[in-house]
């Protein structure tokens, strides 16, 4: 390694042979480098996966900046390839240089801020916060949180900012009511029916269309998305089912029709002996768990068809049976039937907390059929529904995977 000092700047330039280490990960040093000639590779380890990352420094680029400025150990090893010349700056040199070239700072700040954002994202995903969010909805929720917890001053701030930035958004009216209520010294309207619970239980929220996922116009009519699930009894004209024609074509169709219930002897024997719906439901669930979807489906359909059901628990079971039946059909490759069962569910029980689950499985059907756009569109609906749960998470993951490839 040879060193020389440039007369006008006082900055040292250093020559390295191929394969030299300029610094090691873990070293502490206040030097900052600029690559003048040759090649430098930075090798670091990814925090979350332990994967080794190699990055090449471009000519004229700085390296070793963050650790020198922040006075912490190097996070990467810098090694040369081929004969290499670097300029070596101490902090005072670097400061002088920067003070003369504010544009350099601007560029570095951009890089730094992107890094910070990435780290923040990882942190959020580990802590279980949601990754994809609508800032307006979240801002409103912050207001709700503080109002519920008695921090009215903070709540008022959030609601006012909501009105300032999103005067036409979903919760504007409610935010205005909250602002007035707080000004009047009223406590949070506990358990009041209607809009007080921030997420209105509607299958699909209005801002859905902003998501950027274009759906076929045929499946969307007006402002109520689930018009599209309207289906004349027995008719095959549902828009959703029409969508299915895109991929359930020719040969596949015959596959779907082949299925019969003939092999369900097992079901028959289990069936009549014990009467209650809940017994049937557990049996069906057990069958589905062991991939006996045909048998499970038969039981679920029995539950759905049972008449004279009055007890709320039994009604609930009928509701759940319909979803499970749709899932069974989907597992059996009976896509069209599955879609009809699931969309029928949404139509029949629009207020059910299981609507989200139904939409998730509709998305999955499109997903399995390699209809990514539609899959994404339905996953996205799941994502827009509260509360955030496992389905939101799974939908998020699938959207990411579908979008990446």
């Amino acid at each position, binding site marked *: 390694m040879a060193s020389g000092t440039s007369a006008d700047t006082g900055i040292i330039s250093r020559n390295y042979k191929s394969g030299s280490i300029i610094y090691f990960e873990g070293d502490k040093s206040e030097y900052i480098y600029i690559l003048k000639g040759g090649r430098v590779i930075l090798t670091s380890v990814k*925090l*979350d*996966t*332990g*994967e080794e990352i190699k990055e090449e420094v471009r000519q004229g680029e700085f390296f070793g*900046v*963050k*650790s020198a*400025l*922040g006075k*912490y150990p190097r*996070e990467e090893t810098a090694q040369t390839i081929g004969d290499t010349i670097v300029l070596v700056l101490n902090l005072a040199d670097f*400061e002088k240089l*920067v*003070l*003369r070239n*504010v544009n350099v*700072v*601007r560029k*570095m*700040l*951009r890089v*730094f*801020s992107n*890094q*910070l*954002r990435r*780290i*923040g994202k*990882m*942190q959020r995903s*580990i*802590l*279980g*916060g949601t990754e994809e*969010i609508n*800032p*307006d909805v*979240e*801002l409103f*929720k*912050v207001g709700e*949180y503080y109002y519920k*917890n008695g921090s009215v*001053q*903070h709540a008022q*701030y*959030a609601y006012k*900012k909501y009105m300032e*930035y999103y005067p036409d958004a979903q919760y504007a009216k409610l935010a205005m009511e909250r602002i007035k209520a707080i000004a009047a010294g009223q406590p949070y309207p506990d358990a009041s029916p209607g809009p007080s619970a921030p997420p209105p239980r509607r299958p699909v929220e209005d801002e859905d269309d902003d998501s950027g996922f274009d759906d076929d116009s045929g499946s969307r009519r007006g402002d109520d998305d689930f018009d599209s699930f309207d289906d004349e009894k027995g008719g095959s004209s549902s828009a959703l089912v029409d969508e299915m024609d895109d991929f359930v074509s020719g040969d596949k169709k015959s596959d779907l029709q082949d299925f019969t219930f003939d092999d369900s002897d097992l079901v028959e024997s289990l069936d009549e002996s014990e009467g209650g719906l809940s017994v049937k439901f557990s049996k069906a669930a057990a069958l589905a768990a062991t991939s006996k979807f045909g048998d499970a489906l038969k039981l679920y359909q029995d539950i759905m068809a049972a008449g004279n059901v009055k007890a709320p628990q039994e009604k609930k079971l009928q509701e759940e049976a319909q979803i499970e039946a749709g899932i069974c059909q989907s597992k059996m490759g009976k896509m069209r039937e599955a879609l009809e069962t699931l969309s029928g569910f949404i139509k029949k029980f629009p207020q059910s907390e299981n609507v989200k689950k139904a939409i998730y499985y509709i998305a999955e059907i499109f997903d399995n059929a390699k209809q990514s756009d539609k899959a994404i569109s339905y996953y996205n609906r799941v994502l827009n529904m509260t509360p955030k749960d496992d389905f939101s998470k799974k939908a998020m993951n699938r959207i990411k995977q579908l979008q990446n490839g």
Partner: protein
Amino acid sequence: MAMILDDRFFDKFGVEYSPNEIIFCEFEPGNEFYFVQSGKIQLVKLINNREKTIDVLGDGDVLGEMSILEEQPRSATAIAVDHVKLLKFHRDNFDALMQGNPQMAYKLLIIFSKRIYDAKRRLMILLLEEPQLKVMDVLCMLAEEDPHLDLQNELSLQVTPQQVASWAGMAEVDAQKELTHLSRLDKIELYSDKIVVRKIREFQRLVSSRRKKMFS
């Protein structure tokens, strides 16, 4: 390292907040960034519908720096802890500000560098799997942060179990359980406002060997 600026500057860009006042709110669009002149600011986030403190800032810190380059929803809520004096700059003024005060540009670079390191360091804690190690690593991080501490000897960290829980991304009861366990083993002594660690080196060794094994 409070910024040395003349009074004219404060007249033009200065803003003041009373205790408990919100400076900005999580998810609010952010177009301004701030330099803290005096006072303490608590940064909190709502995570799983609970308010969690993610940082406390003081003199010389910068606030809302993520909006220097582009409009971004705020990633946390900033609340004044005591009487707070800030310099507030809109993104549009950033270039002019930097041209006129390159010193401030340099300071920003340093602040960002530290911020990134701190954020990574905290992420490393969260990436550990065992709660016991997370708690130990929080103590390691706090010890490393204070350059005046002698890591070879017993040391005292100004931290509450609640803060430890928050750094470790754990529920308070769980963190408390781990701390109590460590204190029964006489590895630490628990006080209401501080934790005395007998041998921080031992914690560092344990954590780093586990970290190496994590991916192998």
